[in-house]
């Protein structure tokens, strides 16, 4: 049965069937081969939306006239804005934007309606949290149209001429934190979280798996070493690695991308600790589950994929459906991104970021806890 150039179909067949046999034996790899495409389909197909709508907006209405309500209604009808808060002071607006609770603040000045009717073109101010230009650009485009059409219903009869070509309202836009809408300002600080997640989870997921695969686990277990000594001993060196990575990104952000650094660098390094440790905890947990190094890498990938897609790194968090936002909120990267962007771009202080810190802390406790619980001190 020797074929062309000595190619034997029989040997080729044997090779193929051997590969299938081994593929079938490695259940986890097989599950991942099915699971990863499914996960991608669901995330890309249903969760991700690069044209985010229903963005949380606060309104500071100093006029309270028919016309100010018209304006708000038109924005709402554009589907890009969702009024979640009504506020009464400038300071409140600032705080909500700084903490990332809302994406926009619409300020309607006093006498808005009166000026409009007089044809003075009153000023309406839209302040945007522009840290992520992708989240705001479409909404901003939509509001221009909304501001023109808003008053069509009321500007009839004698007021008809007010529908001038410039529009009845002078809409001013104030893009906060990232006025030039430089994408890098948003991406580069975010990368810090993404790089840490990717490398640290993969490296530590290999840590115990490697010992088991090479047979060195047996020798380790026979010594009087305790589980916490093994696990923490494996985590600590990578915390150092994590900080080196952070340092590199901070320097690159400054020198290569000229990202403005508004907040405190020591604060950023301090609050990164639980995030780094949480990722290492995930890796260690995978490490105690995976049978071999390939499985460990696949599990890491399975964790990394939703982290990068649902955290608000690649696509605006607000644009995702509710279930995807819940899923994203369970991941430490989602909260860390808010912390990093908050400190770097908005100058957040420790008090400002506390709401994002406790979910990271909780995740850390769970991941390390599961890791320690799963770690076996015997070969059973």
């Amino acid at each position, binding site marked *: 049965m020797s074929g062309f150039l000595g190619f034997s179909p029989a040997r080729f067949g044997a090779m193929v069937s051997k590969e299938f046999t081994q593929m079938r034996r490695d259940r986890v790899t097989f599950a991942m081969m099915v699971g990863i495409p499914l996960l991608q389909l669901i995330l890309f197909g249903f969760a991700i939306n690069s044209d985010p709508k229903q963005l949380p907006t606060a309104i500071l209405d100093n006029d309270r006239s028919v016309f100010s309500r018209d304006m708000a209604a038109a924005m709402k009808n554009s589907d890009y804005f969702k009024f979640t808060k009504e506020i009464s002071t400038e300071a409140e607006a600032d705080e909500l934007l700084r903490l990332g609770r809302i994406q926009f603040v619409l300020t309607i000045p006093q006498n808005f309606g009166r000026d409009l009717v007089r044809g003075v073109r009153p000023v309406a101010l839209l302040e945007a949290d522009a840290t992520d230009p992708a989240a705001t650009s479409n909404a901003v485009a939509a509001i221009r149209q909304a501001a023109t059409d808003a008053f069509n219903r009321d500007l009839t009869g004698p007021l008809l001429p007010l529908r001038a070509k410039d529009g009845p309202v002078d809409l001013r836009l104030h893009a906060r934190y990232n006025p030039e809408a430089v994408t890098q300002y948003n991406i580069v600080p975010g990368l810090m979280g993404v790089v840490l997640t990717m490398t640290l989870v993969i490296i530590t997921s290999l840590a115990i798996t490697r010992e088991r695969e*090479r*047979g*060195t*686990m047996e*020798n380790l277990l026979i*010594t*009087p070493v305790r589980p916490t000594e093994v696990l923490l001993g494996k985590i600590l060196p990578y915390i150092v690695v994590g900080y080196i990575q952070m340092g590199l990104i901070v320097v690159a952000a400054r020198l290569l991308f000229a990202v403005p650094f508004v907040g405190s660098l020591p604060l950023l390094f301090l609050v990164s600790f639980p995030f780094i440790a949480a990722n290492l905890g995930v890796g260690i947990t995978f490490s105690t589950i995976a049978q071999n190094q390939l499985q460990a890498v696949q599990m890491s990938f399975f964790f990394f994929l939703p982290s990068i897609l649902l955290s608000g790194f690649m696509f605006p968090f607000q644009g995702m459906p509710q279930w995807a936002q819940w899923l994203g909120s369970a991941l430490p990267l989602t909260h860390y991104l808010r912390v990093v962007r908050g400190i770097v771009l908005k100058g957040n202080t420790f008090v400002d970021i506390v709401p994002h810190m406790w979910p990271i802390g909780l995740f850390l406790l769970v991941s390390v806890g599961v890791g320690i619980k799963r770690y076996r001190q015997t*070969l*059973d």
Partner: protein
Amino acid sequence: MNADGGHAVIDVTGLTKIFGRKTVVDHIDMRVNRGEIYGFLGPNGSGKTTFIRMLCGLLRPDDGHGTCLGFDVREQAELIKPHVGYMSQKFSLYEDMTVRENLDFIARMYAVADRAAGVARSIERMNLGRFRDQLAGTLSGGWKQRLALAACMIHQPSLLLLDEPTAGVDPMARRDFWDEVHKLAGEGITALISTHYMDEAERCHRLAYIAYGHLLATGTVGEIVSQEGLCTYEISGPDLYGFIDKLRGLPGVEQVVAFGVTLHVSGRDGDALAASLAPYGAAPLTLRRIPSNLEEVFISLMRKAVS
């Protein structure tokens, strides 16, 4: 032999381990005295490794009780570990670390006092000097074995559990290894060593033979051979291969083994065997009674266990 007048270092009763639905070690009793070199034999998959792992806390026994170095094997594994030197079947030190780094790491795990001196001493003792800074993964089989032995003795344990320490090692290296073990026994260290080599079994003070999780025989080499009561005859002459199948069918014949230019025929029923073999004493063949060796006894034990 029993340096301490029979003080038991290992004393376990009914030790049992079940994996899934398979009983790998089935109620095994064992008593090993201080300073003894105790050989542990049995076919592959007979439960030797599992038994050894239960003694030092790597596996939790499903049944049975007893002590190792005076500590309870079920409850006090953490107290046993510091005093045991264990050498696994597979090389289990770090291949990407040097000889010295490996020994240093193990010494730190056991909190060896004056670590540098301890590492230097064990390197010297095992003649590992010229490989000190070589990666463990690049050592040949025999030297890996020596490194593993050095590592399992670095904390000066009082009990060595060696799981097929000489598998795949050349005769010279095996000889050196056993000389070392005897030297240690002379210092009062106890050793439980599993092996497949009959010559190594003969170098042990006492032996245990297990098959399919059951303990089949214990004692000195002489005791085990005489307990089994096996008779063996040697047939020599030309063209012996033709007889092998014929001999196997005869009454009283349990084993026929070709040994170079002779055949060894054994059976437990001496009279029946003698009667069956009588025709094979005629020229050009010669027939003579020889003492049974350990291998024949073990194969006999194993066959009994199967049936």
